[in-house]
């Protein structure tokens, strides 16, 4: 196989041509004949009793077809939650109903109350403004710790409290951890906030529902990362449509970052309304609407304690986290602060004892769920901040302290259930220091000093767990889904191939990388391979793309299916060449018989499979198409060293990222160009979280950051050119490609590196600051420099807690 298109090369992305020429087909580009437009009427208060909805005036407005309220959904289910957590006391989590449209109460700003369907979008908007909900304001609860007080207003009246669950992990270690911390030579303690994020894929969500009366089939076109999951959740739990009568299509999707995993009420609404009205119904989110209806991310408040012995070895780690669920449980929300977070708390370190406590809390805010990294950034941020703080307290080099405690032998069984198969953390640390030119830092710091700037260098070293699996284990952990992936490899008579994958590309470039793998396996041109995804009618039941799982799980399924195809093709080739099957080899698109000059081309074998005249019909069936479902034996564990270099303006507190380097170990890499692009994007989001992005609520639960005017997205002028490297390779031992996944690493490893860099700059400048909560806006950095603590900044529900170091007060400037 010439190395111009197979594994390890960087062919140009085939999907780019349509995106660059304006011929991509995103959901909002789909317009069906006779379609009507839906506009949602949403709550503008955080908490209130819904005493009635006056739709009379709106119903008479031009073009209005029908106005829907909760009453129309009697007999339908609510939006389901896909993961059940069990509390320390053995009780399962509290799981409130999440209605399609508000019933009796509104519970967050943006909670949908009614929907106007009209002939045109403008008419639907006009009429939506005339719908008059009668809402009696109730006190809103936005602060997690206040929400747990006995007399706190309850988000859900039918629940016993606002506590969703109280999870302990590993509960058996609890006392040993407490004891180790009590007996430690040194304990470092840090209280911090992982600020609330909004994923903000550039394409807002869209849903188009369609119904075919002649076949009783419903179709939903939607901006989803996992159309089969939507079909199952919506069909089985909400609308009671059997799966064979429901098709879900997720065409080109303009970014997801987690927030397009979940099943949303708008999808169910459009599917339902299309059947009711017997015409297609389309909803397109505005950006303002996205801010108050897309699931948010992060929002943890944590106290973490690290115990060390007299030689600075880590002996125990204890964390106590409050995790915001928002007003309802989004699809995978309960899993994020628990299994996706607690299992990562060993990090890269051989800390023998770890205990994690998480209290998940309902508040009058938008539901919170997975956002790029999901639980793993929260774990990494805590670890990589506390290690830096410990190093400062002990007066040791933070890099040396990390190295001293690195895990070096694999496989490594952590005290938090997971077992790392491979890794080489010293190698990635070495590589990072090299590409970041760490040796030259002091000279650069001196240059900055001359300009009146404070320069700092911050390190973080992360571990990630991708491709969550196996299904039987996650089932025990509370998942209400399997976490396998599927692929069908369909070989056409002339030898070209269609791969139907359950993975979904929304920017990752699967159409290019997956084709590279097949081309390499068979030895044909990648142009002969087409990758089909995003349509339940065309692909086998698959779980979709999130958690950096596509190549590790979806790619593995494809490899398994292709292996089955090749095995069958070898039987056919053996027949054609009158040779023994065991002697057949496939290379460069040719089947050969070992030790002879006999050969038959791939295309001749595929043709024989479909025109089986000279064919072993008594042994095998005609045709050449195989499906595989791949259920991984374990997670994969990418890791890496990240280094951030900043300049801080000592007069204003403005932070500039002047350099960022990332040395990752992703195992084997299929397409280096795409992998580097994934890291770049992850870094931008992680740096964004650390410095600018913040979802802010006021004390009444009003969303303050509800547009791009208020929510600071990283822009081109904010970021430097990155230095990225993936040459440290310890292949995954348990999947066929030896791959680990790269989609989230950048967002996981970067926030602590940025914060560590800023604190390094300040402390080098003689300003002793322990911690500043993200985002490190000029106001917060400046305030910290003035000795005012870290208490200034935008209001944020998670942060309003007296006993967190980040206890920013709501409403205070």
């Amino acid at each position, binding site marked *: 196989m010439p190395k111009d298109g197979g594994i390890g090369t960087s062919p140009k992305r085939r999907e780019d041509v349509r995106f660059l020429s304006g011929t991509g087909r995103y959901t*909002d580009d789909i317009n069906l004949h006779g379609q009507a437009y839906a506009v949602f009427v949403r709550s503008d208060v955080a908490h209130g009793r819904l005493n009635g909805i006056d739709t009379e005036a709106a119903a008479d407005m031009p073009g209005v077809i029908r106005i829907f309220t909760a009453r129309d959904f009697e007999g339908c289910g609510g939006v389901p939650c896909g993961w059940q957590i069990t509390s320390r006391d053995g009780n399962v989590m509290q799981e409130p109903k999440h209605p399609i449209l508000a019933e009796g109460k509104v519970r967050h700003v943006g909670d949908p109350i009614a929907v106007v369907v009209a002939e045109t979008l403008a008419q639907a908007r006009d009429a939506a403004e005339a719908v008059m909900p009668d809402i009696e304001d109730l006190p809103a609860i936005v602060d997690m710790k206040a929400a747990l007080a006995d007399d706190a207003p309850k988000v859900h009246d039918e629940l016993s409290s606002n506590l969703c669950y109280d999870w302990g992990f590993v509960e058996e270690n609890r006392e040993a951890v407490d004891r180790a911390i009590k007996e430690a030579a040194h304990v470092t303690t840090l209280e911090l906030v992982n600020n609330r994020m909004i994923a903000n894929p550039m394409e807002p969500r869209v849903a188009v529902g369609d119904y075919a009366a002649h076949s009783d089939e419903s179709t939903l076109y939607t901006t989803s990362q996992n159309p089969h999951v939507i079909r199952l959740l919506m069909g089985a739990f909400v609308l009671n449509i059997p799966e064979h009568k429901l098709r879900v299509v997720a065409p080109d999707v303009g970014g997801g970052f987690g927030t397009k995993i979940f099943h949303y009420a708008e999808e169910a609404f459009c599917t339902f309304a299309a059947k009711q009205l017997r015409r297609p119904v389309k909803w397109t989110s505005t950006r303002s609407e996205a801010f108050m209806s897309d699931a948010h991310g992060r929002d943890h408040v944590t106290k973490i304690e690290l115990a060390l012995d007299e030689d600075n070895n880590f002996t125990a780690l204890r964390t106590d986290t409050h995790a915001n669920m928002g007003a309802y449980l989004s699809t995978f929300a309960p899993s994020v602060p628990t299994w996706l977070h607690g299992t990562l708390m060993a990090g890269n370190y051989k800390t023998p004892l770890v205990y994690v406590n998480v209290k998940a809390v309902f508040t009058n805010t938008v539901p919170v769920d997975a956002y790029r990294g999901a639980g793993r950034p929260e774990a990494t941020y805590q670890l990589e901040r506390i290690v830096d703080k410990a190093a400062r307290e002990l007066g040791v080099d933070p890099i040396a302290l990390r190295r001293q405690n690195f895990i070096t032998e694999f496989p490594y069984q952590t005290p938090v259930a997971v077992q790392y198969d491979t890794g080489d953390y010293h190698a990635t640390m070495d590589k990072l220091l090299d590409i970041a030119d760490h040796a030259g830092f002091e000279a650069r710091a001196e240059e900055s000093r001359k300009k009146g700037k404070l320069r700092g260098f911050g390190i973080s070293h992360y571990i990630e767990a991708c491709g969550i699996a196996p299904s039987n284990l996650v089932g025990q952990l509370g998942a209400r889904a399997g976490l396998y992936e599927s692929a069908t490899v369909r070989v056409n008579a002339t030898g070209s191939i269609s791969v139907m994958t359950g993975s979904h590309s929304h920017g990752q470039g699967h159409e290019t990388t997956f084709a590279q793998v097949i081309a390499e396996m068979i030895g044909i041109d990648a142009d002969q391979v087409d990758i089909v995804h995003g349509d339940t009618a065309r692909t086998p039941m698959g779980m979709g793309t999130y958690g950096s799982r596509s190549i590790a799980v979806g790619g593995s399924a494809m490899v398994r299916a292709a292996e089955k195809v090749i095995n069958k093709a070898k039987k056919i080739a053996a027949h054609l060449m009158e040779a023994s099957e065991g002697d057949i080899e496939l290379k460069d698109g040719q089947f050969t018989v070992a030790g002879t000059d006999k050969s038959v081309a791939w295309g001749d074998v595929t043709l024989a499979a479909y025109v089986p005249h000279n064919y072993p019909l008594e042994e095998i069936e005609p045709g050449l198409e195989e499906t595989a479902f791949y259920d991984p034996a374990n997670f994969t564990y990418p890791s890496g060293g990240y280094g951030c270099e900043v300049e801080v303006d000592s007069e204003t507190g403005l932070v500039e990222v002047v350099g960022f380097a990332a040395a990752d170990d992703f195992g084997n890499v299929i397409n280096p160009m795409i992998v580097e692009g994934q890291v770049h994007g992850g870094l931008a989001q992680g740096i964004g979280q650390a410095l600018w992005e913040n979802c802010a609520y006021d004390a009444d639960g009003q969303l303050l950051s509800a547009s791009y005017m208020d929510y600071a997205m990283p822009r081109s002028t904010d970021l430097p050119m990155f230095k990225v490297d993936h040459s440290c390779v310890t292949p995954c031992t348990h999947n066929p490609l030896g791959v680990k996944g790269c989609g989230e690493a950048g967002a996981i490893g970067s926030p602590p590196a940025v914060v560590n860099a800023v604190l390094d700059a300040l402390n080098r400048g003689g300003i002793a600051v322990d911690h500043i909560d993200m985002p490190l806006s000029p106001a917060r950095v400046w305030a910290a420099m003035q000795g005012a603590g870290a208490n200034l900044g935008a209001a944020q529900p998670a942060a309003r807690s007296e006993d967190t170091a980040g206890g920013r007060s709501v409403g205070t400037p």
Partner: protein
Amino acid sequence: MIKIEMTVNGRPVSGEVEGRTLLVDFIRQTLLLTGTHVGCDTTQCGACTIHLDGEPVKSCSVLAAECAGARITTIEGMANADGSLSSMQQAFQDYHGLQCGFCTPGMVMAATALLEENPTPSEAEIRHHLEGNICRCTGYHNIVKAVQAASGQDVTPVAAE
């Protein structure tokens, strides 16, 4: 309703619009040129950038009726006469300057306009010019490289840094 005529991608077009109809909605919904995207409602993201009489403009910030008689180019009109990608479009592919593709049409329109004004911009000038276009996927690194490459400047090849 107001009847308007304009030239879009070199072809005369006409349509009826309300006074409040935005140019981007006319382009997407009347002309069915869906390559121009809507990413926000506050003129912040730049996904809807088109060329209006040769200038890059966010088409969500202009009323369609204001554009009567105007000459408009959208992403669908950017390819070379033979249908091949323009040098800017090609550079975006060559340097992996796009992932999900949603902001891409606006980026290409904005970047193309930059080179007409400043044929060999520096990295800082490129970043400054593209500040009004948000990309959530790429971290801008490869977009900057693509624009440098399209302007004929030496750029490290992809995956070789």
